[in-house]
């Protein structure tokens, strides 16, 4: 069961490893990212953030979709972290079990505009959010679990 799908450009870090893992009682974290799986340095640093007693699995986007759809993740209380709205959209589109997306943080670039303290989105990403919302998926902005949920569509 997926407890939370989070978009966070820092992937697994303090807020996710401590607060979110505990708030959703996750017993397994899936980091879904195409670069991490081929980057030993990034992998090593992500493993440093693994909370004790929690399983940590890292997969490419394609493998993550396969794993989620195959049912092998069903027995876990799973926290999925992706780096970008694009990657979240891929999971939403290809995994019917994904019903909700938590927007945690994305970096500001020249193409983005700020929609919350930590979220910066490009026009393309805004459209992806709208498409997900239109499909009936909840897209909400919260940095930490005690923040109030802000529906993404309300700030677009």
């Amino acid at each position, binding site marked *: 069961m997926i407890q939370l799908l989070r978009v966070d450009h820092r992937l697994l870090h303090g807020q996710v490893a*401590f607060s979110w893992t505990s708030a959703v009682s996750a017993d397994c974290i899936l980091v879904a990212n195409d670069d991490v799986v081929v980057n030993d340095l990034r992998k090593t640093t992500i493993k440093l953030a693994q909370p004790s007693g929690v399983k*940590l699995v*890292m997969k490419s986007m394609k493998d993550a979709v396969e794993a989620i759809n195959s049912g*092998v993740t069903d027995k876990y209380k799973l926290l999925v972290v992706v780096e970008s709205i694009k990657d979240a959209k891929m999971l939403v589109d290809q995994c019917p079990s994904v019903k909700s997306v938590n927007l945690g943080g994305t970096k500001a670039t020249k193409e983005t505009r700020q929609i919350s303290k930590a979220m910066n989105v490009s026009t393309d990403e805004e459209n992806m959010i709208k498409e997900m919302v239109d499909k009936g998926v909840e897209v909400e902005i919260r940095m930490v679990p005690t923040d109030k949920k802000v529906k993404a569509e309300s700030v677009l």
Partner: protein
Amino acid sequence: MKKVILASHGDLSKGMLHSVSMIVGDLAKQVETYSLYPGETPNDYYEKLKLEISTSTDTYVIVCDVKGGSVHTTLSKLMEFENVTILSGMNMSMVLDLLLNQKEKLETSDYLDLIQNAKNGMSVVSKDSIEVREDEEF
């Protein structure tokens, strides 16, 4: 209610609260800090706390900076109260674990786990640490 107090020489406790707030948000709002400044004695704070605790049914967890420092030794006298637990060797994982623990009353074994996790939070990495260790699978 569980009351958490961070106590230190100087501003470590205030800084710790600021730092953990970045990770746990509003959960940190319940936390009180005490800073001992040069020329002061922790005894005044001890007396104030003693009075508060003696008329309170809350449970108190006091996290001190360094074992055996005057903040720690003075506030440790509060152990005479049943609803007080004092920890030393404050670090960020210790404080985070404490704040994220939902239990109203922690048992001794919970505190030992907390300290073990805080110890586990210490690590050393260098170039040799870039691993080829087998990744976990579902």
